[in-house]
């Protein structure tokens, strides 16, 4: 099961949970699974988050693979100059 970590800003939507384990093979499926656990979080994750999978940061990475041993962090989107 992938370890999914939420930034403090997302924990309003997770009932305060900082971390959950989710079975998923891609980011998109992971988000679908999270939406089932925490209704409303999907939109937030799709719109306002980047995702780091095992330390590598992606934007809009719906089909990026996630493995059983993956550590996944949802991060706030930031803008470069």
């Amino acid at each position, binding site marked *: 099961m992938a370890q999914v*970590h939420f930034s403090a800003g997302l924990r309003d939507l997770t009932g305060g949970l900082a971390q959950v384990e989710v079975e998923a093979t891609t980011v998109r499926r992971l988000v679908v699974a999270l939406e089932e656990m925490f209704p409303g979080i999907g939109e937030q994750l799709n719109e306002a988050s980047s995702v780091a999978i095992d330390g590598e940061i992606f934007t809009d990475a719906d089909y990026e693979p996630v493995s059983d041993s993956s550590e996944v962090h949802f991060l706030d989107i930031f803008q470069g100059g």
Partner: protein
Amino acid sequence: MAVVEENPGYKWVGTRPIRPDGLEKVTGKAQFGADLMLPGMLFGKVVRSPHAHARIISIDTTAAEAMVGVKAVITGSDFPDLAANGAHPSEIDVANNTIAREKVLYEGHVVAAVAATTRDQAEAAAKAVEVTYEILPHVLTVDEAMADDAPLLHEGMITKGVDPAPEEASNVASKILHERGDLDQGFGEADAVVEREFTTKPVHQGYIEPHAAVADANSDGRAHIWCSSQGHFQMRAYSASVLGISPGMLKVTAAEIGGGFGGKTVIYLEPLAVRLSQRAGRPVKLVMDRDEVFRATGPTSGTRIKVKMGVSKDGKITAAEVWMAYEAGAYAGSPVGAAGMTAIACYDIPNFVVEGYDVVCNKPRVAAYRAPGAPMAAFAVESVLDELARDIGMDPIEIRLANAAVEGTQASYGPKFPRIGFVETLEAIKDHPNYTAELGPNQGRGIAAGFWFNAGMMSSATVHINENGTATVVTGSPDIGGSRQSMALMAAEELGIPYESIKAVVADTETVGFNDVTGGSRVTLATGAAVVDACRLIVEDLRARAAKTWDVELDQVEWVDGQAQHAEGAQPPLSLKDLAAKSGRTGGPISANASLNSRGVGAGFSTQLCDVEVDPETGVTRVVRYLTAQDAGRAISPDYVEGQMQGGVVQGIGWALSEEYIHDSDGVMENPGFLDYRIPVASDLPMIDCAIVEVPNPAHPYGVRGVGEVGIVPPMAAVGNAINDALDVRMTDLPMSPVKILEALNDQGD
């Protein structure tokens, strides 16, 4: 010793040839935003609010429309109501910032625009537009905006990120929070604790080229825009949204861009120019004056930041507490999110809380500025860390080494760091002669470090092989700092042909696939990766053509030094030139496209060493020696890596010592020109010494990390720490101007 990995035998990558666009730029031929002239072109002028916060009661354009030479006058009512169309809130903000509807939210906010035959006629007509305002109370700083009963910019703004959601509207758009461990326990373990409060003013990107746009609209709704932009695809999307049309109706050509630093990732003039051109039936040029650039385009945030940190005797940071409020200007969207993620990211800290607020106020909407959000937070954190090192008697490099994030460290913003080069930048400073250079009277030395993510995002590239075996590399990433050179160098390396045989160009929105903005230090990394991918497709194609020509299997063909070689030497080599000349016989023109959403973004670190001399009589600070060490991963184009490092440092020195927005009590900017908003000039500065550290990014084909931004993160703290070293005064308010230094010296004497 600074880590410079062994050169893996590159022929072109890492060399210093002349840049592809250089000749046009030293001979005056290069066409920048304001240089285009079209037949029948009109000159436009924008009408701006003189008030910081006011309701627009009426706009009377009849007098202006009746004036000689005036061909069009537009106001907010000439644009669609995006809110009524259900647009995303961020699009509505862009539209309202482009031209105000019910309210103006800052001095300089656009209320109307005119187009006329001559500049003088346009200026006169702009003055003749009569706007009646009901002046509203305003707020200029985070303190004013967050005060109880503060006047509201947006009546419906409910703070996001707070649970439960507040019931009442405020000027706080959102709250961010990062936390780990137990703060009380952490401070309990500390042998020294320092708590300080810092303030910084808005500062402007200060590009020398004012915003400019030319639009030529057709009666069928299509339009062509030429503009000075960091991202013409983004410009197309924003402009189409504001105009209420499909992006495909707009063709955007990126002119040469005279600096951006983040400030040209957003739109100001483009939709206005299109609408004026539609109304007038002629091309329209809109160019900002410098004072419009200051009054109405994005500075970065003014801030208030509180930092409390504790260390043990051996220099380990045991706890950090950071509170930050960032001005967003008129609409939500300060870079406080990135500030929260970067503030303590250089260090491995077990216990922390980082809390931040995005606060709207009646100043121009902030825009990205080089590592947006990070420099102010670093000023605060790196100043406190310097003080802690002094308190426990530890060398400032050693305390940073003792806490430095390394591969595998859980970054303060979440994930574990991959291979990073922070420690190597610290060591590069330590190993440099500047670190032990002798200091004179009234001189001091300061060190500070900084982190920035760098961005990846989407890029496209097309590579064409010309009939004589030369190549054209086409991307859609506007080149601000020499990226055409890095594209050409990587293409030369991949194709195995000379750099001089490659022409790298930036194409318009109809000629190449989508590219995100030139920003986030992403172009050499991401657009470069697209170029590398396209070149590799070309090489595959060339091998296949050689295999056909020789009638052998593909695996019998190798591509070496720009030519196809038979693995067993059974055939004389076929050069790219040979293959290009015969391309018609082997399948037609040789061309390849690559598009990607970049992966493998490499984190960037910089450590900087600054020596200053402060005149205790006048309070004037002079930087006398400066060294910047930055991890570039792999310097594709060392000349322009150094250029980014030096440029970032000098912008930071300006931020540290002299740059600031000054507003009067009515919210009117008092220093909207380079005379009073003082950016560093040549005589203010020494040479900026560079140590390029190369710890290759394992996820990139050449090991590239973005280099454009992190250089501006450490300078304010480096300068402040040096001033403290010279005079034993801790400066906590930017800029550290002579008058403030004299005040601090006086306070010290009391």
